[in-house]
């Protein structure tokens, strides 16, 4: 201890001096560093203010301007075809022959019953390109492996034909589709796949597969979207009017015609 002691006392006052010099040198309030610091902060504030003041109003991003508000009344066609509920009772409970209440199949005008024409035409089972009749049908449904008579019965054209040979009417075509699309059929029966209307706790109306999927080209057809919501900067009607008058936003028509964003395909 006695050896250590002498070494400390000389250090202590020195240490204290060092702290004092530190305080006096680096104290901002007492040093000239205050002036540049003030200058820097003032310049920063001025720069931020300049950016804010000189900034242009937020320009709509690329794509549509969305500067006009549309309402349901602008699309009478879309909302006109809300069908009323059709007869919802009926239908068995036996799972094998379960019949679901569906609207009539969406036949082309005057095409059904098929046997009105086919009754007098001898059936031709040969696979061929159709000429003369049904030329509007473009088969895009596993067309490499499939042909008309895989689903339509050769002798009774008013009915469809399952793989088992059993005939089913067009109103139960889901049984035919369900042969291959089993998971969709299962989901459709339990209400997961496909559209339901009616009552969540009661009678529901189902749709046939073919109401949404063209059986000859089953991918769901694309639709024109209804116009986007109006951007907040055009929320006040007078703003939208001003934009339309200045001719900058041509989206008044773009909204109706479907716009011009991302339709490269």
């Amino acid at each position: 201890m006695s050896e250590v002691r002498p070494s400390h006392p000389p250090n202590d006052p020195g240490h204290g001096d060092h702290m004092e010099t530190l305080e006096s040198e680096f104290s901002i309030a007492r040093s000239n560093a205050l002036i540049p610091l003030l200058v820097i902060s003032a310049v920063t504030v001025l720069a931020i203010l300049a950016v804010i003041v000189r900034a242009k109003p937020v320009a709509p991003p690329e794509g549509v301007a969305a500067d006009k508000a549309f309402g349901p009344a602008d699309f009478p066609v879309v909302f006109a075809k809300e069908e009323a509920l059709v007869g919802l009772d009926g239908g068995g409970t036996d799972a094998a022959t379960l019949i679901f209440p569906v609207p009539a199949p969406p036949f082309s005008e005057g095409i059904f019953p098929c046997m009105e024409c086919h009754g007098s035409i001898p059936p031709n089972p040969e696979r061929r390109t159709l000429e003369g009749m049904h030329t509007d049908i473009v088969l895009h449904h596993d067309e490499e492996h499939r042909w008309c008579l895989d689903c339509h019965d050769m002798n009774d054209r008013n009915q469809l034909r399952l793989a088992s040979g059993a005939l089913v009417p067009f109103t139960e075509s889901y049984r035919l589709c369900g042969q291959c699309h089993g998971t969709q059929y299962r989901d459709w029966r339990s209400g997961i796949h496909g559209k339901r209307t009616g009552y969540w706790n009661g009678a529901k109306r189902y749709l046939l597969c073919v109401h949404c999927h063209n059986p000859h080209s089953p991918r769901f057809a694309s639709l024109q979207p209804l116009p986007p919501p109006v951007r907040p900067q055009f929320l006040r009607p007078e703003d939208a009017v001003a934009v339309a008058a200045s001719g900058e936003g041509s989206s008044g028509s773009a909204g109706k015609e479907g716009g011009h964003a991302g339709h490269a395909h």
Partner: protein
Amino acid sequence: MPDTPTDRGIPSGADEETNAAPGQLSRRDFLTAVGVAAAGFLAGCTPEFREKYLQKHFLELSPQEVEARLARLRDDYAKRFGQEVSVSALPAQPGVLYGYALDLSRCIGCRRCVYACVRENNQSRSPQIQWIRVLEMEKEKGIDFETANPYYNPERVPDPEHFYVPVACQQCRTPQCTMVCPVGATWQEPDGIVVVDYDWCIGCRYCMAACPYGARHFNWGEPELPVAEFNPNLHILGNRPRPQGVVEKCTFCVQRARVGRYPACVEICPVGARKFGNLLDPESEITRIIREKRVFVLKAELKTEPKFYYFYGI
């Protein structure tokens, strides 16, 4: 004595009388006169006036008072829109908890639901209010709200590079919006629907700040609702016309759901992506979906526990 603060703060009646100049009202007389005038006004005004301007919170109304309010609203709307109007206050059915599911693999982003909702629920046409917002997201990125675009407008949908996520009120089981409301103007009904009492809302918009889904909308201006497009089938907590300065939101079409109907967005959806039903019924569509599909909710990490599920039904 007059120097002590207490004496200056509470002058005695005698002091005041002496302070009042001749011909001037003393404070006591003034307050008495105001009180009598107010009491007289309240006693003299009609019960209808009192119901309208001094009304109670909806949940505190007696059945008779609810009926009176419905009658008043029916009269008001019939006068304003010139047609028969039905305003219901049908309460929640017992044993029902509404749930919703949306199949993202089916939705094509056509926005039919947005406009069907506007029409069914009498939203303001100008300034525009839409309860459903359809977000376009890139398939590359997955669910990403940062880069989602609600203003997409290609000629045809679906775009092969994108998928679409319609977002409306998620009907949370722990709704933050109701917890922050300073006046209790919004609450969760027993069947799980979060509703707003438009007569009680003070328009502070705390609920809009609290909602992580942007599902609440404020009537900044006097809502414009064309008479020809008015839907007269109303519910007092749902789609009745709103005044300026209140917040509104999706109610699962309470006016339809409580009589058993599907919401308007379910009925219009051309691809059948929208599913609705009773979460407490083990055989309903919605419980089947939750049981058989992999469902998820938006922003699950916030513990809002929505009753609005998204799934891929492929």
